[in-house]
């Protein structure tokens, strides 16, 4: 019961701040609301006993990526964009399409929720030590993907430096 209340509060915070992110006029406000949404999603990870992912969410997303976003929002002069229209011309069509997609998703999830097509849950308890289990999976089963991810980060770093350089020569 307590878990359900916590889930309701966290998901309400996530959804409301998500809506705030896409409706605010000022991009700085959008970043702040996105941070609130990310905290709520981190709380949902904690609710599912994914403690390591909760820490990664706070440290990497809120501490890293969002600071990067704030830097760029402050760097880019938004005074002109503030006075212009915030939504594109075909916004009704976009809204309609997205709501249609959500209706389809909700229908399928309702079908699964009433016990039709999700495979049976394996017996036995969940792994007790979350961080240890993730560490073993990362460095044993998923060693090659980890290396590929590190290469991806290197490429992204070089790409970001080249993109933001003053002049191409």
């Amino acid at each position, binding site marked *: 019961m307590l878990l359900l209340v916590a889930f309701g509060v966290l998901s309400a915070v996530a959804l409301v701040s998500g809506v705030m*992110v*896409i409706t605010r006029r000022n991009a700085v406000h959008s970043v702040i609301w996105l941070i609130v949404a990310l905290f709520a999603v981190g709380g949902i990870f904690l609710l599912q006993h994914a403690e390591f*992912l909760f820490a990664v969410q706070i440290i990497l997303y809120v501490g890293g990526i969002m600071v990067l976003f704030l830097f760029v929002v402050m760097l880019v002069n938004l005074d002109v964009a503030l006075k*212009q229209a915030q939504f594109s011309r075909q916004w009704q069509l976009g809204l309609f399409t997205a709501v249609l997609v959500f209706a389809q998703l909700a229908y399928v999830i309702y079908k699964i929720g009433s016990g039709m097509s999700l495979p049976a849950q394996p017996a036995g308890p969940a792994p007790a030590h979350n961080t240890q289990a993730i560490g073993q999976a990362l460095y044993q089963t998923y060693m090659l993907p980890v290396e590929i991810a590190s290469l991806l980060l290197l490429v992204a770093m070089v790409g*970001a430096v080249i993109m933001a350089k003053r002049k191409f020569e």
Partner: protein
Amino acid sequence: MIPTSYYILLGSGLFTIGVIGVLTRRNVLVILMSIELILNAVNINLVALSQYFHSVDGQVFAIFVITDAAAEAAVGLGLIIALFRNKETVNADEIDLLKW
């Protein structure tokens, strides 16, 4: 115990909000933030199903998704800075050099 379908429903709701942001906003920065919302929705689904199947594989994939989000944010924000330097705008519909 909260049913797994609740988590997946929350994930699809957050995904829809992100898609609406990508499709309707003009500001490129807000579009990038909407993509972050979409990636978070994916992570909620991955974690919910990894808990359902008593396996950490989904959480490992969520970590890879976060890595991708970091790479995408770095390159995307670099592009926005380069774009703003050249065209003095952050509106997606004014970036039409490839249009004829």
